[in-house]
C-alpha cells in the first residue's frame, strides 16, 4: 500500500509542477542578485542571502530560507490536505477502504507519502540552490567559509552542517504535514484541509511576533523553524534545534493520533 501511495504521489504531474514552482523563486532571486549585485543589507532579508555574493556554496541555505516562511508550507499543506480528502472528493476513498488493508494502514501510507514529498522537495530546493549558487556566484573550494561566529569552517564541516540544515528544514515541515493530514480526515474538501493547515501557520507566525503571546511562544509550530541558522554557529547552538525537533515530534504524534481516532471510526460515504 505504501508503494502504491508513493507511486501515486510522484506519478502525478502536479507534484512535480509544485516542486518546480517552489524552485522558481530562489532561482529568480539568484538571477536578480547576480545581475544587480545588490544583496540585502546586513541583518535584513532571509538568512545567508547577504553572504551568497561572496560564497555561492551558501545558496542552498539561502534558497531554503527564501521558501521556508511561505512557499514550502503552502506546498506541504496542499499535498497533505489532499491526502485523504482528495480521495473522498474524487469518490475513490470507499474503494480504497474496500481493500482488506484497513484504515490505519491507509493513514500510515498517506503519511509516508507526504513525508516523502517533504523530503524530496527540500532536497530538490537545496540541490537546485547549490547548482544555481555555484554557477552564478563565486565558490570557495579551499577555505569553505566562515561560521556565523567568525570561525573558519572546513568544506567538510560546511557540507555536514548543510546536510543537517536540510534535514532540519524537512522535519520542520512535518508539523504542517500532520495538520494537513488531520484536517484531511475531517473534511471531504482538500481545499478546506489545506486552508485549515495554513490558517494554523498564519496564526502561529502572527502570535510569534506578539509580546503578549510570549508565554505560549515556545509551543507555536513555527517557533523554531529558523533554528537551522544555529547549526552554523561555532560551537553549534543545539538548544533551539533540539526543541524544534521535539516540538515537531509532539505535533506529529498528537495530530496523527487525532487523525487516526477520527478516521478509523469515520462514516465514509464517498
Amino acid at each position, binding site marked *: 500500500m505504501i508503494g502504491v501511495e508513493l507511486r501515486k504521489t510522484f506519478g502525478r504531474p502536479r507534484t512535480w509542477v509544485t516542486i518546480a514552482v517552489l524552485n522558481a523563486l530562489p532561482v529568480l532571486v539568484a538571477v536578480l542578485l547576480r545581475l544587480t549585485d545588490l544583496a540585502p543589507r546586513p541583518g535584513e532579508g532571509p538568512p545567508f542571502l547577504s553572504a551568497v555574493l561572496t560564497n555561492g556554496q551558501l545558496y542552498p541555505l539561502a534558497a531554503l530560507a527564501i521558501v521556508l516562511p511561505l512557499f514550502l508550507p503552502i506546498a506541504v499543506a496542499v499535498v497533505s490536505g489532499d491526502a485523504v480528502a482528495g480521495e473522498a472528493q474524487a469518490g475513490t476513498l470507499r474503494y480504497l477502504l474496500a481493500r482488506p488493508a484497513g484504515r490505519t494502514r491507509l493513514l500510515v501510507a498517506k503519511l509516508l507519502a507526504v513525508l516523502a514529498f517533504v523530503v524530496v522537495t527540500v532536497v530538490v530546493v537545496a540541490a537546485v540552490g547549490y547548482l544555481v549558487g555555484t554557477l552564478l556566484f563565486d565558490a570557495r573550494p579551499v577555505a569553505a567559509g566562515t561560521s556565523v561566529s*567568525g570561525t573558519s569552517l572546513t568544506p567538510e564541516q560546511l557540507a555536514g552542517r548543510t546536510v543537517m540544515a536540510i534535514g532540519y528544514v524537512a522535519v520542520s515541515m512535518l508539523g504542517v504535514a500532520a495538520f494537513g493530514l488531520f484536517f484531511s480526515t475531517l473534511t471531504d474538501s482538500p481545499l478546506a484541509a489545506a486552508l485549515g493547515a495554513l490558517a494554523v501557520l498564519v496564526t502561529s507566525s502572527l502570535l510569534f511576533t506578539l509580546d503578549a503571546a510570549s508565554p505560549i511562544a515556545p509551543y507555536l509550530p513555527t517557533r523554531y523553524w*529558523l533554528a537551522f541558522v544555529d547549526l552554523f554557529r561555532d560551537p553549534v547552538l543545539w538548544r533551539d534545534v533540539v526543541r524544534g525537533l521535539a516540538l515537531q515530534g509532539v505535533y506529529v504524534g498528537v495530530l496523527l493520533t487525532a487523525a487516526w*481516532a*477520527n478516521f478509523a471510526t469515520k462514516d465514509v460515504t464517498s
Partner: protein
Amino acid sequence: MSRHGRARRWSLVVALVAVLASLPAVVGALPADDADVAAADLRDAVLASDGVGFSGYAVSAGGLALPVGDQLPAVADLLSDRTALRVWWRGPAEHRVDVVSAAGETGVHVDAGGSWTWEYESATATRTAPAALTLPAPPDLVPATLGRRLLSEAADEELSRIGARRVAGRDALGLRLVPAAPAASVARVDVWADAGTGLPLAVEVVAEDASVPALDTRFLDVDLAVPPAEVVAFTPPADARVRTGQDAEGLLREAGRRLAPVPLPGELAGLPRRTLAGAPEAVGLYGSGVTLLAVAPIPARLASAIRSTLAAAPDAVRDERGTRVAAGPLGLMLVDAPGAGTYVLTGTVTLDALADAAQTLTGGPS
C-alpha cells in the same frame, strides 16, 4: 465502528494532549532546595563568584524606553529589547558573550589585552582597548555580571533573603536588595544565585511604582564547567574587515579637557558626592549602590539636542522646577543654572529627587 470505540480513541487523544500540555507546568513547579544562608553571606558569595568558570545561554528582557533619540541606538536597543546571550566564562579577563539573533550574531571576546567584537552581518572584527568606563554592552547583561555589579555596594541592612527557586535547572537562592536612600527610584533588585557557587543565575530590577521588572535577565541553560580556551579566543577571519574600536579612555580625557570643572555641592538630593575611576573631573557623581546620580555641565549644542528630546517625550513631567523624564528607574533632567551654564542630571533617582537636586544647583530653596 461502534460509538464505544470512537469514544475510547478520542479519550486517548485527549489524555495524550493533557499529559503533554501539563509537562512544562510540572517541570516548572519542581521545588527548589533552600539553604540556611544569611543575606550578607550570600552577597559575599555572589561577589566572590567572578572566578567561577561556566558556559550558558541567557535571555535578557528590558523595558526601558531610553530618551536618547538616535544618538545611542545600541544602548537603547540593549535596554528595551529581548536579547539572547551565549556566554563562555573563564574569568573576568577571559570570556566571550555572543548576542544571538535569528539571522546573525555579535560576539564580544574579552582577553587580557582588550576585546574583539565580531559582527557577522557586516563581517567586521573590531579590536577595542580596555577602558575603566564604557557604554553598556551585551556582556553587562549577563546575569552573573549584572548581579555582582548591582550587589557590589549593597549594605547589610538593605539585604534580605527571599527563599529559593529553580533557575536553569539548578537550585538558586534568592537575595533581595531594597535601597535605603529615600531618593532611590529602584524599588528592589532580586538576585537568584546558584546555591553551590554563588554565581548569579537570574536578576530582576523593579522600579518604584512598577509591577513588572524594568530589567529581567536570567540563564535558561548553564553548565558550571570551565569552557575551553579555544572557544573563548578569537582570530579575525581572513576576509573580515578589521577595525580599531572607539578609544573610550581618549574620549573621556577629551571630555575632561573640554568640560571646565565647576564647583558642585558635596551633597545632592540627600546623596553624598563620590568618586569613580575614569570619570572626568567635571562630572559630579553622587550616591552609592543602585542609587546613583550624575551631574554634568554640557555645551549649549548638546543641551539643545537633549532639550528637544525631552520636549518630545510624551510622559515628561513639566513644572516650574524644570522638565524631567523617567525611563523605568532611570531619570533625566536638564537644568539651566543662571551664570553657570547648563547641567544634565541623570541617574537611578526619583523625579522628585532630580527636581530637588536641580533646585540646589540653581541656588533655589530645596
